[in-house]
């Protein structure tokens, strides 16, 4: 029973991993920008939620009304700059690492390096849960999963069903071809960057619901989030959702069945195994011969 509870909780927290990974994955896959600054945007999203909730007593989820537009603009502006300066791939890794450092230290200037935590009184989601018999499903994690499904599922439909989405996929495969079909990659790129920013706002909000925030957290997300992005297949939104849930559930079960100390050991060994067996990501469709 404990293992079932852990697996369910883990899968739900996987929604948070998926939210964090989705924005990174889509800019990497579609725009060839490995945007480490995305972690900075998530951090800012978390602090905005903390700040608005603590200072004005706004419901944490409603803080998205502020943080999502702010981070949309930030994400779009970032993409505009990357595009203007022709920064892609490994140079984007470097530039965005510089930007991440700046973001982390600026948040330290504003909120100090001290731990911040939305007090129980202002956070109706923090500690409540839905009970199904002896299984408890924490509200904050249901929120994480709900937003993940909503945002990632929606993004997936847009990519698959709309003209802009198909244009983006064409752009990812061949830039010149896409350009000749009249796709304005600049504007499209900025919209994608902006939407990645929105996903960062949501991820940050969800993180702030259930966790203590400190600037150094941005670095701690690297391992799990990169694993989710690559396991899901770069640029594959549904893949990152499934990979997020899978990584969350798997880690939790390992922690219960063996010991939490074995979790990184087993998780990353499993990731290597997965890469060796399915090098194109676990959730990519098998390419036709």
């Amino acid at each position: 029973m404990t293992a079932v509870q852990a697996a369910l909780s883990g899968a739900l927290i996987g929604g948070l991993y998926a939210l964090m990974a989705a924005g990174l994955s889509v800019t990497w896959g579609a725009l060839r920008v490995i945007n480490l600054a995305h972690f900075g945007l998530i951090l800012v999203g978390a602090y905005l939620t903390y700040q608005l909730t603590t200072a004005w007593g706004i419901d944490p989820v409603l803080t998205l009304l502020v943080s999502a537009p702010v981070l949309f603009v930030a994400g779009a502006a970032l993409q505009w700059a990357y595009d203007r300066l022709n920064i892609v791939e490994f140079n984007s890794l470097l530039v965005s690492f510089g930007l991440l450092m700046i973001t982390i230290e600026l948040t330290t200037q504003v909120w100090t390096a001290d731990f911040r935590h939305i007090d129980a009184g202002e956070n109706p989601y923090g500690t409540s849960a839905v009970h199904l018999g002896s299984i408890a499903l924490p509200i904050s994690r249901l929120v994480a999963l709900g937003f993940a499904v909503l945002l990632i599922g929606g993004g997936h439909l847009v990519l698959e069903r709309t003209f802009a989405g198909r244009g983006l996929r064409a752009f990812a495969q061949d830039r010149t071809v896409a350009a000749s079909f009249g796709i304005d990659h600049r504007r499209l790129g900025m919209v994608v960057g902006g939407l990645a920013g929105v996903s960062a706002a949501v991820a940050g909000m969800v993180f702030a619901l259930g966790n203590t925030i400190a600037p150094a957290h941005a670095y701690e997300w690297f391992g799990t989030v990169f694993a989710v992005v690559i396991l899901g297949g770069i640029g594959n939104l549904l893949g990152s959702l499934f990979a997020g849930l899978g990584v969350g559930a798997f880690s939790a079960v390992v922690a219960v069945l063996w010991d939490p100390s074995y979790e990184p050991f087993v998780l990353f060994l499993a990731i290597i195994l997965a890469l060796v067996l399915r090098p194109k990501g676990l959730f990519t469709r098998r390419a036709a011969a």
Partner: protein
Amino acid sequence: MRRRVLAAFAAIVMVASGAACSSKQESGGGGATDQSPIVVGSTLSLTGAFAATGLIHKIAGEQFVERLNAAGGLLGRKVEWTILDDQSDTAKVGPLYEQLITQNKVDLIMGPYATPNILAAMAVAERHGYVLPQHTAVLAPQLTYPCQFPAWSIGPTPNQFIPNLLFDAVATLPTPPKKVAVLTSQSGSAAFVTDGLGDDKTGVLTVAKERGLDVVVDRHYPPTTSDWAGMAAEVRDAKPDLVISNSLGVDTVNALNAMKQLGYTPPLVFSLFPAPGPLLGLGPASEGALSVSIFEPNKALVDKVGGDAQAIVDEFKTKATAASVAFPVFETQAAASWNAWEILASGVKAANSVDNKAVCDALHSKGADTTFSGHLAFDQKVNNFWPTTLGIKQIQNGEWVMVWPQDRAAAPIKAPTS
């Protein structure tokens, strides 16, 4: 061809010039008159993972130096403190202390924050023969440098002392706990208290068994843990009377949060080295939680300490609030910082010199006087760890209160409400 040779040369010159150019300035140090300030150097983690606590030590240290200078400084000289940011990166600590000693030519040094950093600083201090007062490393067996002076002592064997202290304290409850769950962070001193070190396997686990307690959960987790649901579910399902969280920082907060999310609040929880603020922020969920402390600004304790204690505590609160510290209270970390500075000041006064050898000898022979931990006598046989003044504190009505041992308690320990 020539272009490449030159380019390579240019590159190498950049590296080489580090060693190649001559020293122009002999600032500080030698030949100084008695009017020049005494310079103390240290690193602190002002950015990165340890920065939350690094900040407390910065504020406390600056406050101490200010007060010291207002009272005429040391040996009639002003004291200056040079703090470099080690960015919570252990690999940076050694070179920065080398820089402080050889480049800035500081007269004295103060320890950094966090055990790995203190060990790195100790290696440098030993090479240069500098006295190293340090706030927070309690791993007595590893701190082998004779001129290292701990400001926070849990005696020579914290791995025996803390479990016994805790179990003694909870044994006075009307229904003493029988089943304990132990969660241990695999970092720094936390694992030491659970499992001992090297051949000495004494720790919470063995002491609990000796005392006939039943360890129903024993989990070790990596410091990078982000999902606490699994451990929370195990603890909930094992129904312990006491959860011992041998952890650092906000781990206990996260674990309690995860338990609460599963609809469970443990009857009694002990947290080893928590960040005090966030734990209070949990509200009713953390009421009754226990931890260790060398000082809490409870009225009874402050009065007992006497002297400037109240003024120091109040002033710290003002400064920390101004620096937007979330929990601006002068408690264990700040008190340890204060102790460390008083050790350094006592040593210099006793030696009547800033010569590190003399200061080290003076501290060994005469000890140090501190505001919050009284007179400290350093025993070289146990790596200068002094008889501990560690007690148990408890959250009562949303405030940390010292509750054990009885002779230093501000209030009696309270039983779980449920």
